[in-house]
């Protein structure tokens, strides 16, 4: 009897481990589904689900279905580290898609580095994140600002005023604006760095008028800072001074800003819903079928969509979802026909080579695309971060800011 019991236990155990061996491929997701950042997090998570649905509907990866373990980080940093550890220690994931703010990325990057699991960060950001496990599908500040500043100096003139949030996204972006201004014969005539809680922009608007710029590079972060655009327009300055931005629209600010203030604002990003190509048409159709068309799709959502598909392409190429093989495949120059045009994962910097679009706000809370810069490389990241030559690099490169 006892022997019988033991053998049945062994049989059961081996059956369980056998089923574990044939388990679905698991990926993890941590996004801000509640709290102040869910303006981005909900769409990022929706994009992840949509991408996995589309892959699973086509028969999955290597004949297996992909399962996702999702966490809501509630716009809190402590939740990120907690769930990142849980997903590594308990869930047995093959890849992680997570994070919006740079602080969240920096909090969890070491965890996936130690666990050697590919980690995809999908948001526009200040640039410079570099280690072997981290893959960035959003555009970096230098990648977006180079075409934007070049375009704006040609369009408006050489005198530039910078209005930026007072933390590393703002100060690093300001560095790039200074650098690209110099390269293109422009001149920064004034800078103002603002706390995220500022609601009254009268002082900034006076300083702008005092400096007499041809255009303002405005990088408002959060709802309060979009008030700047209203106040700028209401002061009657929009007709004489251009406004360009590398993050306007990334959180659907064009929906919040009134048509009078939003018309004519220039934004540059890796994706706008108005991009015209077959992949985007299909993507938008799938998205609206599942989530409706109440809110426009933000670039962060497409960054996640691209991350999932780039990872899936790497799994197909490696013939395995094992992290080490996938990371090697990701460094082989994977390309993907994305909603924002063809994108390529740069083998050395783990950043995405992608189109940068320049769009003009219309009078109906939307955009029209005025210029496309094709296949823009993440130049700064490629220059600083060569993970093929130095796989042990684990850095966050920042340019010398003044």
């Amino acid at each position, binding site marked *: 009897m006892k022997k019988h019991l033991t053998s049945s236990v062994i049989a059961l155990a081996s059956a369980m481990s056998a089923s574990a061996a044939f388990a679905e491929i698991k990926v993890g997701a941590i996004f801000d589904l509640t709290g102040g950042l869910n303006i981005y997090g909900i769409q990022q998570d929706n994009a992840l689900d949509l991408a996995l649905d589309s892959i699973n509907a086509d028969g999955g990866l290597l004949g297996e279905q992909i399962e996702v373990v999702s966490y809501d980080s509630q716009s809190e940093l402590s939740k990120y580290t907690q769930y990142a550890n849980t997903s590594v220690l308990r869930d047995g994931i093959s890849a992680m898609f997570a994070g919006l703010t740079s602080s969240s990325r920096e909090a969890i990057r070491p965890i996936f580095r130690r666990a050697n699991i590919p980690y995809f960060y999908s948001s526009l950001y200040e640039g410079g994140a570099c280690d072997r496990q981290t893959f960035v599908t959003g555009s970096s500040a230098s990648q977006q600002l180079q075409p934007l500043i070049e375009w704006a100096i040609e369009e408006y003139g050489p005198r530039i005023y910078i209005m930026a949030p007072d933390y590393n996204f703002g100060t690093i972006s300001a560095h790039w604006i200074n650098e690209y201004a110099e390269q293109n014969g422009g001149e920064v005539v004034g800078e103002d760095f603002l706390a995220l809680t500022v*609601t009254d922009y009268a002082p900034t608007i006076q300083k702008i008028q005092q400096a007499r710029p041809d255009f303002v590079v405005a990088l408002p972060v959060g709802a309060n800072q979009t*008030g700047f655009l209203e106040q700028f327009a209401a002061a009657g300055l929009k007709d004489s001074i251009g406004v360009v931005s590398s993050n306007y629209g990334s959180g659907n600010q064009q929906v919040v800003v009134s048509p009078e*203030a939003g018309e004519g604002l220039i934004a540059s990003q890796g994706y706008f819903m108005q991009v015209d190509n077959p992949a985007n048409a299909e993507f938008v159709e799938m998205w609206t079928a599942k989530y409706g068309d109440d809110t426009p799709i933000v670039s962060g959502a497409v960054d996640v969509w691209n991350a999932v598909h780039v990872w899936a392409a790497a799994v197909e190429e490696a013939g395995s979802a094992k992290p080490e093989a996938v990371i090697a495949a990701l460094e082989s120059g994977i390309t993907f026909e994305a909603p924002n045009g063809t994108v390529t994962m740069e083998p050395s910097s783990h950043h995405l080579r992608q189109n940068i679009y320049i769009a003009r706000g219309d009078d109906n809370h939307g955009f029209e695309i005025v210029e496309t810069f094709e296949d823009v490389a993440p130049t700064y990241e490629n220059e600083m971060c060569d993970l093929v030559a130095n796989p042990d690099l684990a850095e966050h490169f920042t340019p010398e800011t003044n």
Partner: protein
Amino acid sequence: MELDFLATVLLSSLSSASILLIATIGLAVVFGLMGVINLAHGEFLMIGAYTALTVTQAGVPYILSIPVAVAVTMAIGAIVEILIISRLYGRLFDTMLATWGLSIVFYQLAVLIFGTVTPGIGMPQYNITIGDYNLAGYPLLMIVVAAAMLFFVFALMTKSVYGMKARASIQMPQMAQAIGIESSRVNTLTFAVGCGLAGFAGAVLLPIVPATPSMGFAFVIKAFLTVVVAGPVTLTGSAITALGLGGGASVTASFMTSVVGDVFFFLITALLLWLYPMGISAKWRRKL
């Protein structure tokens, strides 16, 4: 320094101070007359803004949406007072904790009802020119609004029967009850008035500060500090404090940077609280 720049700095600093005062008065009334610090004040502001926005989107002219916002926030304020605040009188820290919790609930409710992005209504595209400088007209109008609000609250508290009852019930509750004032009902009304003033602020500032679930956070800290620095003579104290701190911060920001403006605000607040731990009006002989 050119004269026109100086004039615009002065005018816009006055409007900054007025905006701070508009956002603060409701808090000052509740704190001054009830000894309750309402940390959900910012969320009442947010409710006022969303009410005005919703009503405007339904086709009602913006100016008429303001009284609707006041009515809605007063009603919610009255309910909150009856259900929560009235059970916690005399327990300052408990009311702070309760109203803070309430603010989180209101915030998340707003996210659920309105989502994270809703269209703003924009500012009237009217501006005035002084020399080489343009100033948006609507923020300047706030100077008048703040003065009117101050006058209204002052008259309400000193000239109306309700105002006398409200002050009687807080200064000498037993005596007030003895002569037949139902102090609990008066308190409900006072809290509702405070919330209504917050709702008014949210609605009237809507063109300047777009309605978002988190808009309360931007106001509540500075409003709270203004009331604390003002001290026991809340109304006059708050007006002077808002003018000094808000206006000063704005002037500093104009000549230096916005960060220095904020540093000015918080540094002077700390300095004043060090010099006057009970608020600047602790030794004044006025009552309001």
